[in-house]
Every structure is written in structure tokens, then in C-alpha cells.
């Protein structure tokens, strides 16, 4: 089976996005194409209908273009890129864990939980970016102190999520 090009996949995703909004509009009786209050005047569903259909059509066009001739590769996966991708995925994973940990612990420990999470996340990121332990620790301390001084003390913002 022929592999789909990146543009074809992107086109299909755009179509899926448009179809989702079209279904959501069609299944909501309040979102009519024409308003029920005055004749000929667009209703709440006017824009969503037109736009979702347009996105589906354009997404279809991108898919067809991608399948026909555009077999262009946007990303050349060199060994260095593969390594970079690993670092990127670990950064995103770390960010998800950081946000999750903040959200879960904030109701119990409030702003302190956020500061601890920032401190640990900064160490994690610096180690991931191949910095030394000494650098990572100093960086995390300074940066956490900066966030605390500027946002907590300066602007009185508490990160209680």
C-alpha cells in the first residue's frame, strides 16, 4: 500500500476537524442556518455551517493534492533529528507531568506545590538539555526564586491552579 504524504494526512485531519464542527452544529437545534427571529437574517449556525463546510472542502483539496503529486518530505529524519525528537518528546512529557503534578497537588499544598514543581521541572529540563548537575541546581534555585519574587511577592499572584 502506498504511504500517504504529510500533506494528505494534514488534509484528512483538517477534514476531520471540519466534520466534527459540522456534526456539532447540525445536532444542536439552536444553531440554525437562518435565525428564527427575523426572516432572511443568519442564525447562530450560519458561520459554523459555512466555515466547517469550507474547511472540509479545502482539507479535501489538500488531501487530493498530497495524494496526486506532493510527496514532499518536510522532515528529513537524520540521526541527529531522531535524537532531537527524543529530547522533544521528553520535554513535552515532562511538561505534561509538571502540569499534572501542579494541578493534583495545588489543592493540598497551594502555591508551595507550584514552586516545588517549578524547581523540579527546571532541574529535569536542564539535565535533559545536557547541562551539569551543578548548573541545573543553581539555575533551578535562581529561576524559582525569580518566579517567587516577581509573581508571588511582586504581583501577589498565587499559583493555586
Amino acid at each position, binding site marked *: 500500500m502506498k504511504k500517504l504524504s*504529510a500533506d494528505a494526512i*494534514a488534509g484528512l485531519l*483538517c477534514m476531520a*476537524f*471540519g466534520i466534527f*464542527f459540522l456534526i*456539532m452544529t447540525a445536532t444542536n437545534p*439552536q*444553531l440554525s442556518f437562518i*435565525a428564527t427571529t*427575523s*426572516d*432572511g*437574517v*443568519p*442564525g*447562530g449556525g*450560519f*458561520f*459554523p455551517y459555512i*466555515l*466547517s463546510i*469550507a*474547511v472540509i472542502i*479545502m*482539507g479535501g483539496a*489538500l488531501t487530493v*493534492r498530497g495524494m496526486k503529486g506532493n510527496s514532499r518530505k*518536510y522532515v528529513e529524519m537524520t540521526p*541527529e*533529528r531522531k535524537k*532531537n*525528537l527524543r*529530547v*522533544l518528546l521528553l*520535554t*513535552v512529557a515532562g*511538561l505534561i507531568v*509538571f*502540569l499534572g503534578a501542579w*494541578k493534583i497537588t495545588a489543592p493540598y499544598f497551594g502555591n508551595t506545590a507550584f514552586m516545588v514543581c*517549578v524547581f523540579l*521541572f*527546571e532541574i529535569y*529540563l*536542564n539535565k535533559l*538539555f*545536557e*547541562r551539569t548537575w551543578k548548573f541545573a541546581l543553581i*539555575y533551578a534555585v535562581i*529561576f524559582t526564586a525569580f*518566579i517567587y519574587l*516577581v*509573581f508571588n511577592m*511582586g*504581583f501577589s*499572584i*498565587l*499559583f493555586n*491552579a
Partner: protein
Amino acid sequence: MGIGLDVWAAGLSELMQPSVIMFLFLGVLVGTMIGALPGLSATMGIAIMTPITFWFDPVDGFAMLMGLWNAAIFAGGITAILINTPGTPASITQSFDGYALYKQGKGGLALGINVIFSFIGGMISTLALILLATPIAKFTVTFNSAEYFMLAGFGLSMMVAVSGGDVLKGLILGLAGILLSTIGLDPILGIKRFTFGNVNLLAGISFIPVMIGMFGIGEVMYQIFTRDKAQEAKDIEARKVNLALGKVLPSKKEMKELMPRGIVASVVATIIGAIPAAGGDISAIICWGNGKKFSKHPEEYGKGSVEGLAISSAANNGVLGGAMTTMMTLGIPGDAVTAILIGSLTMYGMQPGIKMFTENAKFTTQIMALMVLANIAFLILGLLTAKVSAKVLNVAQPTVWAAVTILCVVGSYALNNNFFDVMIMFAAGILGFLFKVFEFPTGPFILGILLGGMLESNMRRALVMSNGSYATFITRPVSCVLLILVVLTFLYPVIKSMRKKKTVEK
């Protein structure tokens, strides 16, 4: 209507506060660092700093943002001159001549020319903003919903046509952005749309977290993914070289020769800046290219032409006043930064457009004056620190990535003390990364989200007023002209590709 001298006097008297001057210089300092660090752009800086400035008085907040923006664009030239890497996309042409001058031992002069002509470009475009904004705003008094609908459509069509190579992709993202802007309460009937029972979505998708995600986290992800350690090592070696910089200030004779071309470039840049989506990079390329064409010494361009560098420097800061004019008078952003500034003004309860010259006239005068002060501030700071600015470049990119990641989280949360905004920022970051990798232009998407509400509410309002007759968009002269422009904007790439095909066939 019009801004009287009394309004100017009241506005200026409030500006002469120590806090305003302090935040202005702080903004210039941060902007210089952001602009001088490759990988950090003015847009990223403004996106991250905007939520922080919401905690200030509006004048203090805008002082910081104006200082940061103006300085970041000028400072992009520092890296272009010293390590041949544009700090911001707008400084692309400065590397052509600036780096060659540095290698010839005239780095100081190149840095000086960068500061002086960025200042000239910025001042001339700000002057245009001050002189032209009121007449344009007066003209818009006659606008009603039909014109505003067409205006938003024109802004979007320009963004699709200008911002990236692939019109189809731009069009898809523009439409998707408008579709996402329909989330929340219907602007006319107040019906909930696509909120899925989530109260956070009632007011729609917050624009600033989207910008922070796209230009902050998204950019960091892209830089991690495309990291080239060999190039990084080369850059580090280049920084170690530290060639002699020589004198910073150009001679009187040099200034006399360069001034006319610098002024012309500034005027052209102001006009380009006023066109939605045409930013500093486009302006710099157009001005540098034409400068070479009309120069007495075109052979020197790209090999260390002081004239070429002066034109490039004036051209990239020259767009700022033009972009501000379009943003403040019509509510259409000239570039990504002015898009964020619209979000800023909205958060302060102000609406760009005619109301900026009536209800908020004093604040408008303060923004204009802050643009002037920002230019003066970076001129002073830039000339004083020209020789030490190279030191800023010694910050490694991973250090910046780690800081930006946390600042994006903190900034998006600080907007409304809402975790949901952080989630929006994170999702926008991933989207921004994917858009960049697969070469989808982000401009139309952002403008779609920003202008979607304006587009929809004005179109439906116009139809309500015309009892459902679409003829209202054609019978009103300004609306009709804008409609023709929208059609031409979309047809231009098609005609261009057809002509290209014909030329190839011949």
C-alpha cells in the same frame, strides 16, 4: 472628532512619571536582550510579557511593551552583524552587509549605523502614526457593519496571500481560526456554541494564551527539534573571535550621504507596515533590493555596504509605526505583535478603532508618545552599549528554552488565574510546532481567531440592518472597494502562478 492639544497635554503629563520611564527602559533592556538572542523573537517576548504587564497600570504596561518591541527589532541587527545570524526575521538583510563590515574591522560602525537608522526608521514611522492616525480614524466614522466586515475580510485575505508560500494551507488555517472563534456565546443571539458545558469556553478561546503557546512553547519545541549542534559549535567559535569593533559613530559626511536613502526607506517601510501581514522581513527585503537597484555602488551591496545596512536598519524599525496605524485606526493588526497588542487593549477594556480617538483619546496619545520615547531610549542605550552588546550573545539556547517554557506557563496562568488558559497555551504550542514543521503559515490562523468575532458580528449585523439583503456589501462604496480588494488578493497568487507557467512554457 480629533485629538486636541489639551488631550495631548493631559496624556503627556501622565507619562512623565518615574514609573513610566522605569518600565520603558526596562522594556528596552529586555527587548535588546530578546532581539540580540538568536531564537528569541519580538513576538515571543511580547507574548510572554503581555500577561505580566496586565498587573501594571495600563500606561506602565504599555511603556514596557513599546520599549520591548522597538528595542527587540533594532537589537535583531546585533546578532546579524556580529555572528551573521538575524536575531529577528526583520534583520535578515542586516546580516548581508553588517557581518561583512564586522569582518572588515568595522563592527562598531555597523552597530552604530544599526542603532541610528533603526531610530530614524522608528521615528519617521511614529511621526506618520501621529499625523495620519486621526484622519484615517475620522474617515472610519462613516463605516458601518458592512465596511467592518469587509475590512476584517481584507485583513484575513492579505494574511493568507502574504504570510506564507502555500495559499491553500493559509486559507485552511484562516478558516479554521474563524471557526474556532465561533466557540462561546453567539455575538448576536447569545446562544452557547461548542462550549460542551465548560464555563471557561463561554467567553470563547482566550487569544493571548494561544499567542503565548504558538510563539513561546511552540517555538521552543521547534528549536529543540531542529537543533544543529555542529552549527552551535560554529557560532560559539565565531563569538570567541571578537574582532576589533572600531569607531561606533559615522562621520558627518557619511551621515549626510546616508540620510536621504534612510528617510526614503523609512517612508516605504511605514507604508509596507500599514499593510496587514507585511512585516519587517518583507519591508527589509524590498527596501534593500530597491536600494541596491538605485544605488551608485550596487556592487558593494552584500559585501559590506554601509548604505545597504542603513537602509535595512531603517526598513525594519520603519514598519512599526505603519503597523500601529492600521491596528489603532482600523482594528486590523499589521503583524503578530500588533495582534497581541489588540488583545492587550481588549483586556484593558479598550477597542481598537474609532473609539481609540474618542473615548480613549488620552491613552492613544500616550501610546504614540511612548513609541517616540522608546525610540529615544533604545538610541541612547544602543549607542552606549554597542561595544558590550556582543556579551549578550553568550547565553546558550537550552538556558533560554528552560526559562521560556516556565514563563509561558506562568504568563498564561497569570492572565486570569485560570489553569484552563494554561491548557489552551499548551495545546496552541503543540499546534504551533506542527504548523511550523509542516509549513502551515500561522498568521492566518491567529488572525482568524482574532478577527473571527469582528467578521461574524459585523456581517450578521449588516444583514439585520439590510433585512437580509446581501446587496448591502456591494452598494456601499467603501465596502464594495474592499470586496474588490479581497477578490484581487485571492486572485493574485492564481494569476501569478499562471503567468509563471506561461513563462516556463515559452
